[in-house]
């Protein structure tokens, strides 16, 4: 949802910047990070930072196009933003699937419980066990407690999501003798986020 810290997470991840002065995202913003994933694999991670405001909700099909992974972000200090998580997850599941070369199916999605530096505890705060169970039941690959301010778990979460994507790619690579991602020795991964829209590949 709006103001959960999607842009801060991306700026931290891509430019290692932290600022309180980001503007609201109108529509969608873009960022790219190039990773030397392994000695022979370069990953071009294309990140689509999607506006959290619900007015932009029906534009998401344009923004999800060709995405192969996603981060969904909620704000631990405002527990009602957790309610938005299911909404965004089902929106993703409805509008985007893995490429046919990968056999289709839902894209890997990672949940980020952001602003954990604020140590917020409220009556509706979810326990770790509750979130883990929620993630398991709702098809999230994993979840992380993150803080863009303290640079906590941002790198780890992104790395995990990319590894999930690369894993799917390599599985298909073996099967079909060429990878959707790796056929050019160069992978472009587009990640989307409601929150941060991670990643697509081409």
């Amino acid at each position: 949802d709006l103001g959960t810290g999607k842009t801060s997470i991306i700026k931290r991840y891509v430019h290692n910047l932290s600022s309180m002065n980001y503007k609201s995202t109108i529509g969608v913003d873009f960022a790219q990070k190039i990773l030397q994933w392994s000695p022979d694999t370069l990953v071009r991670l294309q990140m689509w930072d999607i506006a959290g405001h619900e007015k932009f909700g029906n534009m998401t099909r344009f923004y999800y196009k060709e995405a192969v992974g996603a981060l969904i972000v909620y704000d631990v200090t405002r527990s009602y933003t957790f309610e938005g998580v299911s909404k965004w997850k089902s929106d993703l599941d409805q509008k985007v699937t893995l490429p046919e070369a990968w056999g289709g199916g839902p894209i890997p999605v990672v949940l980020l419980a952001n602003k954990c530096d604020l140590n917020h505890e409220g009556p509706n705060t979810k326990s770790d066990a509750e979130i883990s169970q929620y993630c398991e039941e709702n098809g999230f690959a994993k979840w992380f407690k993150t803080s863009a301010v303290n640079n906590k778990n941002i790198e780890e979460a992104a790395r995990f999501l990319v590894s999930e994507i690369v894993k799917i790619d390599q599985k298909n690579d073996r099967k079909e003798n060429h990878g959707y991602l790796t056929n050019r020795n160069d992978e472009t991964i587009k990640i989307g986020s409601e929150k941060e829209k991670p990643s697509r590949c081409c």
Partner: protein
Amino acid sequence: IKKLVRLGIPESVRGKAWQFMAGVHKYRKKDVFDKLRDKEKLPIYDDIEKDIDRCYPDHIHFREKGFGQEDLFNILKAYAHYDTVVGYCQGMGRLVGMMLMQMPAEDTFWLLVATIEEYMGGYFAPDLPQIKVDSRIFDLLLFEHDPKLAQHFKNEGVDPILYIPKWFLTLFTMVLPWASVLRVWDVFYFEGVKLFFRIGLAILDCTRDYILSHCPSTSEILEFLGSIPHELLTPDLLLDAAFKIKLKRSTIKRMNKKATEKNSGESDKKLKIDGIEFKLIGDNVNK
């Protein structure tokens, strides 16, 4: 008048001139702003509040506890009551902040009302119908105006829906240097939303050479469009390019019709409440 507004309105009368051209006098009612501002909290206030700090974080008046923040919040709250269909949409804060730099809060409220009623009816409505139509129109115009660039964008999957919302919904305040923004607004209140297309095409005219030589693929294009160097879009360069573009109102109208038909089912007509009465407003996009 057309020539004069195109040359730029003097700073001292700019706010008054915008209000006059927008027809604020047709909407302004005594005490309404104060009453709406003090009405009960709406759920949308939470969203507005989250955006207040993030409208003009670089501007001293709109930073945390800057005196502009209170005005910004009050105006957006009052507007959410004034037009419950539109309520609040991101981007409106950029318009309000810009207006507040030129005039007091109550004047700003009525200019916001007139701007949305007279010019931007379908832009902030639920599901943003006009932005989708405009993105299609812009695509058609770009193909006529600069086929080479349009084809490059198309090949790379760069659809106008990816950049037009930010340009149009914020009335160019998030893409242009400040001096250019003011000049664009001067002309906007005289010429209406036709100017959106003219300026949009002019931005690409000013940057096409760079894009075609330096932005070979999607990532580079989108990153570039997200933060275009301001020196490429100074008032002289931008407005010169904009006024050279031949763009007929009838062409946009025709394309609007075509694009709207494709968009069928998403009518611009809607029932709205202004706090006092219900009324049906039509499609005044081509004002």
